[in-house]
């Protein structure tokens, strides 16, 4: 979980939101291997019954949990996951919103880039910016 101390020290939390719990868990494993163990990663995947989909309640809980301490950067796959994140934003306090950045970035590349950035001790705003840079990095 977003086990950050409340004084704002420690790394930014990654919140990974996907239609698939397995996708989110696999991406968290990959990001952890590259970025090291210091970055807290929270995953939210699947619908209430465990099938592919999104569970707005758990998305909101994860984002609220992340928006403590050093704050969080939220990465999201597509479609209704994005809608769930947007809906969650409307349920959060101004303090929580100030402690959270949603990255408009490709999920895999963005998560890896944000995780490494977070491991260097940057802010959630900076981690989101690095994730968004992933949109313009050529693969080939």
């Amino acid at each position: 979980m977003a086990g950050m101390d409340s004084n704002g020290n420690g790394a930014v939390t990654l919140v990974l939101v996907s239609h698939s719990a397995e996708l989110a868990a696999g991406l968290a494993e990959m990001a952890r291997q590259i970025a090291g163990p210091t970055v807290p990663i929270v995953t939210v995947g699947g619908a209430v019954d465990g099938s592919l989909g999104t569970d707005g309640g758990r998305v909101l809980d994860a984002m609220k949990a992340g928006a403590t301490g050093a704050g969080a950067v939220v990465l999201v796959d597509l479609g209704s996951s994005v809608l769930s994140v947007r809906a969650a934003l409307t349920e959060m306090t101004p303090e929580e919103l100030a402690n959270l950045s949603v990255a408009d970035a490709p999920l895999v590349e963005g998560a890896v880039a944000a995780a490494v950035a977070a491991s260097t001790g940057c802010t959630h705003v900076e981690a989101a910016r690095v994730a968004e840079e992933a949109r313009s990095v050529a693969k080939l």
Partner: protein
Amino acid sequence: MSPSSEPRVERHATLPTDVALHARPAGTLVRAASAFAAEVFVSANGRRANAKSILDILALGAEGGVELLIDASGDDAAEAAEHLALLVPALV
């Protein structure tokens, strides 16, 4: 001397034969480079990657035993290049 007139510093460093610049070692390199103010690049396989960008470094595809060219420019370029030149052969 102003920071901008700091010359570009180059160092060569060889990856351990059994350590490719993937996953964990790539993250270690990027974290190390990010600690310096200098602009730092790593070249291999005819490509030049920003050493502070994990996606750039992963795209290099540098395999174990490959010699990397590290180049740095800016305020602490000499320290950055030296630090990374020592780090690369010690990556695990």
